Structures are given as C-alpha cells and as structure tokens.
C-alpha cells in the first residue's frame, strides 16, 4: 500500500505542468476554443512530449507506462483544462493492445504513439444515453470485410480524428470495429461543445470497417472505464486549479473593508470544497489503480469513483462561481471556464445518477477498498 509517486512520475508531472503553464496559457486556450476547440499543433506538442506514446506498449513504439502515469499526465492537463482529448489516446492504446488482432495493433499503435493518428472512441447513440449495451448501428459482412451503417454522436474531435473505435451490432451482438475517417461512407459534422472543446456527429453509410473484436461490449466497457479514470484525473486537476483560483480571489477581494476570506460562512464553504477535492483525488487514485482488475471488480470500482467525482465536480464548480460573485460568471475570467469544464466532465461516460445506479446494482454484502 503506497501512494507515493515515483521519481519518474514526478518528473513527468513537472514536464507536463511546465508545458501547460508556458505553452497552453489561458489566451491560447481561448483562441483554440474560438477556432473550433481542437488544435492540431497543440496535439503535436503533446506528442512531442511523449504523451501520446505514454501508454502504448514498447513493442509498438510506445513508452509502455501504466495507468498512474496516465493519471499524473491528465491531472496536469486538467489543471490547464487543455482542450485536446489526450484521454482518447489512452483509451485507444489500451483497447487496441488488449482487444485487437496483432496486425491491427502493428498498423495503428505506433501511429498513435507518434501522434500521427488520432483514434477516438465513437460510441454515443441517441437512444442509449449512458447505457453501453444499447446500440443501433449495424454491421454487415461484405466481400472485403464489413460495412457499417448508423450514426454516433458527440465523438471527441470527431471531424479531426483519423479513425474511430465504433461499437456496432454484428449478428445481434455488439462487436467493436475500427473505421477510418477518410473511408467512403463516413461523414462528420463538427461543432464546439459547452466547455469549448470539439466534438462531431459521425454518420456511417456503408463505411468499410476493420473488426477488432466480437466481444465488443467487453471492449467498450474497458474503453469507458479507461475513459472514466481519465475523466477523474483530469477533473482532479481542474478542481485543484478551481479551488486555487477561488482562494486567491477570496484573499484579494475586499467587501465591508476586509477580504471576503475573513467571513466564516465562506471559510466553511472553502473547507467543504477542500473536502470534496480530496475525496475526489482519493477516488481518482482508486479509479486508476483498479483499471487492471477483472471486469466485474473494475466496473464497480470505476462507477464508485465516478459517483464521488460527479458530486465533487458539481459542488466545487458551483461554489467557486458563487464565492467569486459577479466576476465568476464572466467569460473573461478563467474560473468560469473551469466551471463549464467541470459541468461537462460530469456528463462524460455516465453522470452521477447513472453511476449511482451502477453501484447500487453491483452492491454486495461487503464494502471498502479491502473488505
């Protein structure tokens, strides 16, 4: 039992933090958001830092690091609410390495590692909301392999991605496919989202696709769990910075002749924010550390984590705005963007109520990390 970061992880954290502080300031973020929410050059900078390669196996040109390194990285990106979806690289690396045929791994993993290929999960369907086992997109066999028909929503950076991991019904069961964006029959419609990042609608009309695994639901669950852990880590960084901004403001802002940090009712609110931050951080660790467990235990753990993070994000985001007063609701002030990011993160990969349902359904006689 050990929660210390290794020296390598500390160095990784510092490197990422340095890039965020110097290379991805608030003004750059603002201009990327204004230009659509995804910047290929920023993506390339992440790749140059080795981050797209971080969790790709060494055999495929990656650094072969684990979930804690990914977590450290995402905490720092979250601290700067970086718009480019590095979490998707971690999802793709894990899913391809765990579930895809060797040939597909050889074909894609090194390009993911180098940053050349942005491969993203495209699983959201209208009818499914947060359920993973509801899928209307269909695959049919073709002489060359398979062709897909259907639509996916809210695909991260969907019109900038190079390929999609797509769960699809094949013979009545969910399978996982890889589809290239430039393939025939693939259409995207991009747009900005509430937090300033980019997403797209994906339409598949006979698009040729590579079958990754017929155990698509299990692969999708793994992908989403990696995504949940990533969301948790990124959220911890965002919450930490949100609290730091709030504390700074409260110590500067004077009303009635004194800093508002001197009012006990507000101080207690800050204590509650700190509580929520540390509970969230604890459960973010838990989420990343449980990613290697067998599916049943992994899924229960990740849902528990998302319940805690969802509550923490909402509380910290809302209270931060409230404690700032008017300035907290302006576009000009960084804090409001953290609030929006936290709001959106709560709805990523299932919101608090959804995961509470998952926890409830999976509840057993015992509880606790070790029980």
């Amino acid at each position, binding site marked *: 039992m050990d929660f210390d970061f290794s020296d390598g992880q500390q160095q990784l954290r510092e490197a990422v933090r340095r890039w965020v502080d110097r290379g991805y300031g608030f003004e750059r973020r603002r201009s990327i958001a204004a230009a659509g929410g995804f910047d290929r050059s920023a993506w390339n900078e992440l790749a140059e830092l080795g981050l797209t390669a971080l969790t790709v196996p060494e055999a495929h040109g990656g650094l072969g690091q684990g979930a804690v390194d990914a977590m450290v990285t995402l905490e720092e990106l979250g601290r700067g609410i970086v718009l480019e979806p590095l979490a998707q690289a971690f999802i793709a690396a894990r899913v391809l390495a765990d579930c895809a045929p060797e040939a597909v791994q050889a074909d894609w993993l090194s390009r993911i590692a180098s940053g050349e290929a942005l491969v993203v999960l495209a699983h*959201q369907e*209208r*009818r499914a*909301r*947060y359920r993973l086992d509801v899928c209307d997109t269909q695959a049919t066999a073709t002489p060359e392999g398979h062709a897909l028909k259907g639509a996916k*929503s*809210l695909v991260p950076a969907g019109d900038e991605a190079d390929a999609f991991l797509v769960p699809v019904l094949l013979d009545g069961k969910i399978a996982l496919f890889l589809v290239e964006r430039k393939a025939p029959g693939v259409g995207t*419609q991009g*747009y*900005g*989202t*509430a*937090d*300033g990042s980019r*997403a797209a*609608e994906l339409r598949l009309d006979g698009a040729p696709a590579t079958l990754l695994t017929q155990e698509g639901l299990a692969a999708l669950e793994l992908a989403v769990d990696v995504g949940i852990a990533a969301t948790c880590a990124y959220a911890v960084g965002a919450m930490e910075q949100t609290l730091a901004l709030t504390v700074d403001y409260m110590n500067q802002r*004077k*009303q*009635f*002749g004194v800093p508002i940090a001197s*009012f006990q*009712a*507000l101080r207690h609110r800050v204590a509650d924010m700190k509580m929520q931050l540390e509970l969230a951080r604890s459960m973010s660790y838990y989420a990343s550390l449980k990613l290697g467990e067998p599916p049943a235990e992994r899924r229960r753990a990740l849902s528990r984590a998302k319940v805690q993070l969802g509550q923490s994000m909402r509380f910290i985001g*809302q209270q931060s*705005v*409230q404690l700032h*007063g*008017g300035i*907290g*609701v*302006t*576009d*000009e002030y960084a804090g*409001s*963007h953290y*609030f*929006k990011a936290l*709001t*959106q993160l709560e*709805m*990523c990969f299932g*919101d608090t*109520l959804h995961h*509470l*349902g998952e926890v409830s359904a999976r509840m057993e006689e015992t509880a606790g990390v070790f029980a």
Partner: protein
Amino acid sequence: MDLAFTPEEQDFRAEVREWVRSHLPSEIAHKVHNALRLTREDMQGWAKILGKKGWLGYGWPQEFGGPGWNAVQKHLFEEECALAGAPRIVPFGPVMVAPVIMAFGTPEQQERFLPGIASGEVWWSQGYSEPGAGSDLASLKTRAERVGDKYIVNGQKTWTTLGQHGDWMFNLVRTSSEGKPQTGISFLLLDMKSPGVTVRPIKLLDGECEVNEVFFDNVEVPADQLIGEENKGWTYAKHLLAHERTNIADVNRAKRELERLKRIARTEGVWDDLRFRDQIALLEVDIVALEMLVLRVLSAEKSGKNPLDIAGLLKIRGSEIQQRYTELMMLAAGPFSLPFVQEAMDAGWQGDFPGGVVANAPLAASYFNMRKTTIYGGSNEVQRNIVAQTVLG
C-alpha cells in the same frame, strides 16, 4: 383560511388570461416557452403592448395611471403572464425607478419621466454595483460633483443588466465622502446618450452579453435630475428594495419551467427512470412549498394582518429553485445538452442540431446563466445574514 381565490379574484384572473393570450404575439411566447433568444424588440414590443393597456406599470397606484391592483391581483397578473409565455417585464423602469420617482420625485420629474416608463417607450437601466462595491454597495465610488446647475459624474458602474439597450439610467453616486459611507450617496437620473457615457457589454459564461460596464467620463447631468435631496440617496434605494416584492421568488416561472422539464424528461427518456424522476418529484415539492410561501406573504399583504418575517426567504429559495430546474433540464438531456450551437438558440433555425433535438440547444447555456441568480440582487449569503438577523437579533 382558504386556499381558493375568491370569485372576484378568479374573475380577475380569467380577464387577464383572456387578454394576455389574445395580445401576446405567438412568436414571442414560442421563444419564451423554449428558452430561445429574445431580442430587444421582443422585450420592448411586449412592454409597449402592456403599456398601451396601462398594465406595464401594473404595480402602480391609480393616481399615477396604474391599475391600482392589490397584492393578489398583481400576483395573478404575473402568473398569467408567466404561464402564457410572456417575457419578464424588464423591471428597471416600471418596477424599480418609478416607485422612487413617485415617492420622492418632484411633480415635474414625475410628469417628465413616468409617461415614458408607463408606455414602454423609454428603456431604463440600473446603476448600482461597481467593481469594488457589490455586496458592500455602500462603498461605491462613482462621484457626482455639483458645479452650478449640473452634476459632473465620473466613475464606473458594472453588472448593468441589459444596459446596452438603455435610454436612461438611475444611479447611486457619491456626492460626499463625509460620515458613514451610506450618508454621502445621492440618487441621480442620467440620460445614457449624454457625452462621456460609454457602455461596454460583458460577455458572460453562457456566451451572451446580458450585462454591461458603464463608464462615466465627466458626464454632465442637469441638477433637476437629482431625486430628492443630495446625500439621501441611500434612503431612496432602500425604499426601492422594500418594494421589490414576492415576484422575486419567480414561482410562476418555476411552474412553467417545471412543465418544460417534464417535457424534456419525456423526450430524453428519463421520465420513466425512477431515479431521475425522483429528482423531478423533489423539485415539484420544492415548487409547491415555494408557492405556498409566496401565497402566505400575499395573503398577509392583502389583509394587513399577521405581518410575516418570511419575505427574506423568497429570494433565497426562488433562486435556488431556478438553478435547480435548469440543472435538471441539462442533466435530463445529458450528453445531448453539450453541443454549443449559438444559432440554434434563435427561433426558426433550420440546421441539424447534434443528437437531433433542437430543444436541447439552450439547456447548458441556461444552466450556466442561472448561476447569477444566487449572486445578484444581494447574494444569497447576504440574504442569509439578513434572515439570521431577524431570527437571532
């Protein structure tokens, strides 16, 4: 004790309902029912329709051309307007400055300003908050110096709601720095087209520009635009606050929006999800309880008996409920509330909204926007201070 309105009140309601439904333009009602963007023309158009009927100043006494309604009638009017989908009346003219002009203005001032307010022709803004004076309003610094028959105004106001549309503005300005901060404040009416006035819209987190900074650079204001006595402005402002009424709880709008939430929940498939539905049920209880609270205050106002110490609760609870219904609407749509397509918040947009339901377009923005409600008009923290004072002494 009786929950039902009297037959006379019910007749009154029916009359108002009939008139509102036949005079409210359906395009405007459509926008309100779907949280689409309202233009200045929408807001002022409805104000002028009300003005023509004599109902824009619906809280005014008859001597000033108002309908002379009692508290219950005013509530019924507000409720019928809200449920029909009328835009909220922009309060700065008819609800906020007009009562001050009536109470403390000269007959000349009353004659000069009230008709334009009553008709909806003149758009008023409020100049209270400053960058350093929010909850602590008395620390305001905008100065007005008397020079001959004019005041020369210098300084800055902020959070001026819809100030970009304003024709006139009422301001609290500092005319003396002696004594307690409250004592050197005056209440000044100011033509926003005067040289030296600059309005800078502030973009808010929802992407809209609902509030403004207003800068005064040697703005000349004729002295006959001072209300009452110099350095007594704080008293008049308090009078104004005392006349902000039960409508601050906005329970009528909450009822309308609860119905919208239920429609959204059906469309998004969570109406039959017991877990989500419970959230709606709790909100429904909250709204009924708020309505009962409002009705108690109205009843006490109407009868003049049993004065209540609960009006301070209305703003706290009302604002929390506003935030909650926008939050639940957003959560109902979940991921499909996240695409940010500003054009889709305009009526008549014909594009394909991601996920397919254009009604979801404004949900996240509305949630973001509503964070203001626990901050403005005296933050809920200040409101709790006041409630605690009444309870604890």
